[in-house]
């Protein structure tokens, strides 16, 4: 197992290197540059370019950047004066992570329960209710759900604060807005998977042993049905935890999402790269966790040499 994880780590680092290279080239291919502004005199411009090393050949810039990343330094932002990319991430990521964890933990567990209930009551009222929830969750965009939540729970009924992120009561509405889609997706996948597993021969074997339906579902069906859900969770978890622009904007949460979008608008090279690499690393990590989880859930996928 240790050897396997090491190997995966190696491949992950390689993936990240490719990612850095491609993004590094792409941002520089975009028209304009971070200092393209009328307000700057040519002199200041030149100074800035020298300061950030733009006057050197691109290949030198690239290797300098790689060297800095290896030292854990993402450089300074080109728009937020005197802020390093590291501090921006360190300041904003905890908010996104906290919000994401709340949203995910509730939506994944509720989604699983909903999917299981729907599958067990196939074709009955509860099943149709879960379909309705799933359709709303997948088809209504989060800015509408967020807006509605703010209007009803925040303004009309005054139950929760409308925006910002200062305590537990502030976290509830954005968590719902953020997790709704995941909940809907998880419940659908789990339902389909449960219905597939129930057709399997080993469920019949379990039945022939005279054990209760509850035990069949709990011990035989769920564990085998959960795999497809785990598969989709890797990328979902990574993207939700590293911040979502829309929900964070609506609820005025100082998370990573805002910086990510603005960095592109500002052509803030170092921030774009830093955010992308951070997100990429997170995605690679999440996928690795998923791969390890596979083995925990299904012994057939467990890797040799444990």
């Amino acid at each position, binding site marked *: 197992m240790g050897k396997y994880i090491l190997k995966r780590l190696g491949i992950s680092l390689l993936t990240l290197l490719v990612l850095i290279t491609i993004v590094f080239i792409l941002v520089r291919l975009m028209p304009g540059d971070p200092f393209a502004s009328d307000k700057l005199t040519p002199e200041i411009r030149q100074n800035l370019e020298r300061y950030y090393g733009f006057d050197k050949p691109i290949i030198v810039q690239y290797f300098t950047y790689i060297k800095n990343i290896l030292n854990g330094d993402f450089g300074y932002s080109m728009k937020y004066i005197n802020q390093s990319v590291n501090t921006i991430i360190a300041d904003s990521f905890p908010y996104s992570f906290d919000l994401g964890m709340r949203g995910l933990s509730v939506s994944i567990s509720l989604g699983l329960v909903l999917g299981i209930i729907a599958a067990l009551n196939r074709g009955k009222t509860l099943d149709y209710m879960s379909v309705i929830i799933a359709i709303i969750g997948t088809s209504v965009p989060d800015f509408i759900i967020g807006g509605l939540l703010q209007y009803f729970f925040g303004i009309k009924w005054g139950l929760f604060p409308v925006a910002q992120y200062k305590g537990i009561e502030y976290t509830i509405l954005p968590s719902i807005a953020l997790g709704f889609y995941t909940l809907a997706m998880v419940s659908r996948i789990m339902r389909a998977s449960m219905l597939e597993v129930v057709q*399997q*021969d*080993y469920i*019949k*074997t*379990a*039945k*022939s*042993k*005279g*054990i*209760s*339906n509850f*035990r069949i579902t709990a*011990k*035989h069906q769920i*564990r*085998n049905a959960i795999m497809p859900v785990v598969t989709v969770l890797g990328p979902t978890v990574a993207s939700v935890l590293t911040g979502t622009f829309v929900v964070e904007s609506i609820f005025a949460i100082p998370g990573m999402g805002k910086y990510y979008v603005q960095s592109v608008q500002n052509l803030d090279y170092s921030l774009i790269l830093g955010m992308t690499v951070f997100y990429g690393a997170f995605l690679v990590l999440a996928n690795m966790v998923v791969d390890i989880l596979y083995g925990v*859930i*299904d*012994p*057939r996928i467990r890797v040799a040499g444990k």
Partner: protein
Amino acid sequence: MDKILEVNDLSFSFHTYGGIVKSVRGISFDVGEGEIVGIVGESGCGKSVTAQCLVRLNPEPPGFFESGSIKYKGQEITTMSEHELRKIRGVEIGFIFQDPMTSLNPTMKIGKQIEEIFIQRKLYNKKELKEKAIEILKLVGISDVERRYNQYPHELSGGMKQRIMIAIALVGNPSIVIADEPTTSLDVTIEAQILDLLKDLQKKLKTSVILITHDLGVIAKMCDRVLVMYGGKIVEKGNADDIFYNTKHPYTSGLLCSIASLETKKNEELEPIEGTPPDLFSPPIGCPFAARCEYAMEICYETIPQEYKINEEHSTLCWLEHEYAEKVTLPCKKQYEKEAI
């Protein structure tokens, strides 16, 4: 011999989008204590549905009992509640399924899957459970049991998996074991081992066995009595000897003719039964085999024949036994007689 299972005029059908499929149409048979009864027939003849009816494993709905009764030791199975059925399944009637590759839960350890029968019934503590599982694993001829106990199904070979299935079916010490094509997905050498094991255990534990197969060779090797099923009906039943050497139904005879034996010459063609089995959406009004039967008479297409008793055990569902029918000699009977000598 005491009858422990009596099936009377059992009919079982399924609701489908296309209409009602009549899978089993009025069959009667019984199983005595310590007896091996074989059910033979081609795919889709209703043998698996029959077997699963006995412990109500068919999905209901869409499946439903149209008529008939199944009495296990005097208890009526067809009207039992799910709760009562659980007391029968596993401990009174064990079930061995066709495909050991897919019939074991891939994410549960072998030992746990065997013990499960008792866990719900809270009969034993943890240590006793393990002892029970180890004991039965040894009985079905698994070596290195302590290790196997903690392994997952994918770590075992097909033959071993089927041994595990047998262990699961037998661990509750049932009075009847239903084996639904237990060797179909195994290769011939393993098949022989599994059949030997089954017969051996049946003798040791004095269990009755209902063996479902489409292989007459398996029947010949294992069974005391045989039911030949076709189109949801039992077309011939009797002692194994009667079925093989005194065949009375053209379908049975056709099955016997189509077997390749060691004496079959290189260029000799096997004799298949021409045609296909009847559509059970709308089964024929007459004899289900009439369309494929070379001895079919007019009446065969119009009315289902009654059951003709040849002797105490042996009976057939064929108009040829009627007193007005022309007497014919079914071909393969002779061949088998010759081989027997």
